[in-house]
């Protein structure tokens, strides 16, 4: 039988892919965070970004489930054992497309899960169709006349539906990305969203590394992330300037902090 083990080199990403930079920042952030790898679970769906957990060093616990379903799986894990640090790391198609309903609900439920969305504005693994965040007019083999759907604004949605942590970063800015990851990982309670702009060198020839580089702009340090209106204002910006940084932090208690059954310890502990 043909043996593909030697051909199956890791990571399975293209040279120059923005995912490498995210991986580097993630490894660094985890190392700095003081989080115990034993208690860290990475959850993903399916896509190029979703392969991410397999490449993290040192190795972590991994639940790499179905396309679009990372958030409900992560929610189940967190409910079962809320001492685990549960981090979702998946693509824009996964989280905002197939998983759209779960995304809204994770925000509303305020489950203590951290979500890193590798937003390359394209379905890369399936070879380049429009994703929810693709620009208007984005041409592909399926969108032959260009995408006609208004690009999805995940940050604005998260803010109006009262997410407790909403931020954006860019894979091309290591320090910024690492600091955003740390902020998300240390966010005290509830759902934390970090949207990460990530160039896809193979299928997105519009929003390239260069393009992002020219457009991203760190948020003015004077911005108060507790100011919802100001946060919304930032979230609605996408064009000449794309703000990166922490847009919004709310003050809702996390779901797990409110559930009566969890007050005596994790469900896992209670099983003995």
């Amino acid at each position, binding site marked *: *039988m*043909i*043996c*593909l*083990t030697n051909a*199956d080199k890791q990571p399975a990403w293209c040279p120059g892919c923005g995912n490498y930079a995210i991986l580097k920042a993630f490894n660094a952030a985890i190392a700095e965070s003081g989080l115990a790898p*034993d*208690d860290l*679970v990475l*959850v993903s769906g*399916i896509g190029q970004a979703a*392969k991410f957990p*397999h490449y993290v060093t040192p*190795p*972590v*616990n*991994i*639940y*790499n*489930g*179905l396309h679009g*379903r990372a*958030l*409900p*799986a*992560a*929610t*189940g*894990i*967190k*409910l*079962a*054992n809320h*001492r*685990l640090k549960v981090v979702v790391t998946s693509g824009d198609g996964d989280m905002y497309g197939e998983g759209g*309903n*779960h995304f*809204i*609900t994770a925000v509303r439920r305020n489950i203590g899960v951290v979500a890193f969305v590798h937003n390359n504005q394209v379905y890369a693994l399936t070879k380049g169709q429009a994703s929810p965040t693709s620009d208007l007019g984005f041409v592909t083999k399926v969108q032959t006349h260009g995408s006609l759907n208004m690009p999805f604004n995940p940050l604005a949605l998260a803010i109006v539906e009262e997410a407790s942590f909403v931020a954006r970063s860019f894979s091309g800015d290591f320090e910024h990305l690492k600091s955003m990851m740390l902020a998300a990982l240390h966010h005290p309670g509830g759902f934390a969203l970090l949207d990460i702009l990530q160039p896809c060198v193979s299928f997105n020839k519009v929003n390239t590394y260069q393009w992002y580089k020219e457009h991203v702009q760190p948020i003015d340090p004077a911005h108060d992330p507790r100011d919802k209106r100001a946060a919304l204002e930032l979230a609605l910006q996408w064009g000449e300037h794309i703000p990166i940084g922490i847009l919004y932090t709310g003050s809702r208690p996390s779901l797990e902090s409110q*559930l*009566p*059954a*969890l007050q*005596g310890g994790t*469900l*896992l502990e*209670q*099983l003995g």
Partner: protein
Amino acid sequence: MDLLIRIAGEAGQGLQTTGSLLAGALSKLGVHVLSTQSYMSRIRGGLNWVDLRLGDSELTSGCDKADLLVSFTTVGRDVLQGEMVPDGIILLDAENDDKSIAVPFTKIARESGGSTLMANTVATGLLFALLGYDTQALLDYIREEFAHKDNEIINANLAAAWAGINHAEVMKKIAAPRPTNAPKSITSGASAIALGAATAGVKVVCSYPMSPSTATLAALAALADKYHMVVEQAEDEIAAINMVCGATYAGVPALTTTSGGGFALMVEGLSNAGMLELPAFIVLAQRPGPATGMPTRTAQSDLQFALHGGHGEFPRAIFAPGSVEQCFALTRQALEVAHRYQTPVLFLTDQYLQDMEQNIPALDADAPPINRHILADASADYLRYAVTPDGVSPRAIPGGAARVVMDSDEHDSAGHLSEDFAIHMEQYDKRLRKEVAIAETALPPEYYGPPDAENLLIIWGSTYGAALEAVDRLNDSAHSYGMLHFTQLWPLNLPAVANMLAGFKQHITIEGNATGQFAALLREQGLIEKCPHIHRYDGLAFTADFIVDAILGGK
């Protein structure tokens, strides 16, 4: 003897209150009680009915024809009067009527000082007296049941019951089964499943509401505080099953409840549980389809879907209880199988069994949790999908030194994505071997009937009670019938089942669907040939009457 009381009226008229009060008080007295529900998909109006079957020995199912119909509406009387035993008695909530006995329940309720809804309590009083039961027992029961309510409410109910009792004085009494030592604990199928799951150690319940499964969901929610369960309503069924997958990954028994349409949305997740080797547990309460179908009726028409739902090939086990007591015990056994073999398990009930209430010996609320078969102290070199003879890999959970790695892509024994063909086949075979292992310890079907019966009724799930009664009646009339009841529908222990099927002159399959889904499975497995069958698919449950009539050609 046994007696069927049918209480009919509109949704919102409190028929269930009447039913529950009667059932509770009678079972306190020691009468055998079994109740079933027929209702429409609306919140007010329409025509619903509760059947209360009373007996002086154990009861196992409802029946078609009523001995006594109490209808709170004329429509109810009109529609249901054709479903009476000869000389059956009909009481209509009216001041006078020429087709039935008029009893002005509502008026009596008002006159006794209560609201119209108290007509229910009037009816319980009247029926208790009419059937010659000790009315003090009813009054005591009402006091007990309403103990946590305002004094005003208690007294109003007592007054209403009294008014009913008084009204009965002038009426002709009806012979009814005498109290025996029937067990006292009124339990529904839905709540027996919930208690089975709670005692077994289920701690996460994620569901999206859907009739008739919501009864189990609500029963679980009612137990949540006592058993420290998280009952989380999911945004949709896809979320529900994936939350269950996540929770079981983390080591906590978890389940979801749903019905056909919701299950349809779960089958991708089912396939995922098969691939990740998670003990995901789905309570699938059947109702007639396709699509929205008849949301409040019963069916056994999702078996083949349960067998083959989900893409690709992976092991699963399917169970279907036949009685309220089996709901409890089988839930626990099925959860055990899910955890022992680390694979999804489907638990098939239906509207009929979900809603059926019966007085049974109290279920063991302190039954021990099942063994979750978790490997303590797995070390850093742990392999989640180690290849073993029976396909079951030792199961660690995250939070320790071992890295627990799962991938819905084909993966190597460590759990990491692999595209290698040989690894694919090795893991594929490993997974399928688990189904062979489950088959080896599969629950055998239960035989009932004379050892030398010539004809064998083959049934599964909730048809149990009706078939038990049918077999007795058929054999009474000098026929020779036995029945084989399956509670584990898949995988089957082929040699054992073949053995039990052998030696009959005739097989007759009985199923609550139109196409004969279990029969098809048995033929596919080479266990039976094409054979006569009895199918019911109008939305109602099998009764002994239906089966006996079908066999003796009475219909």
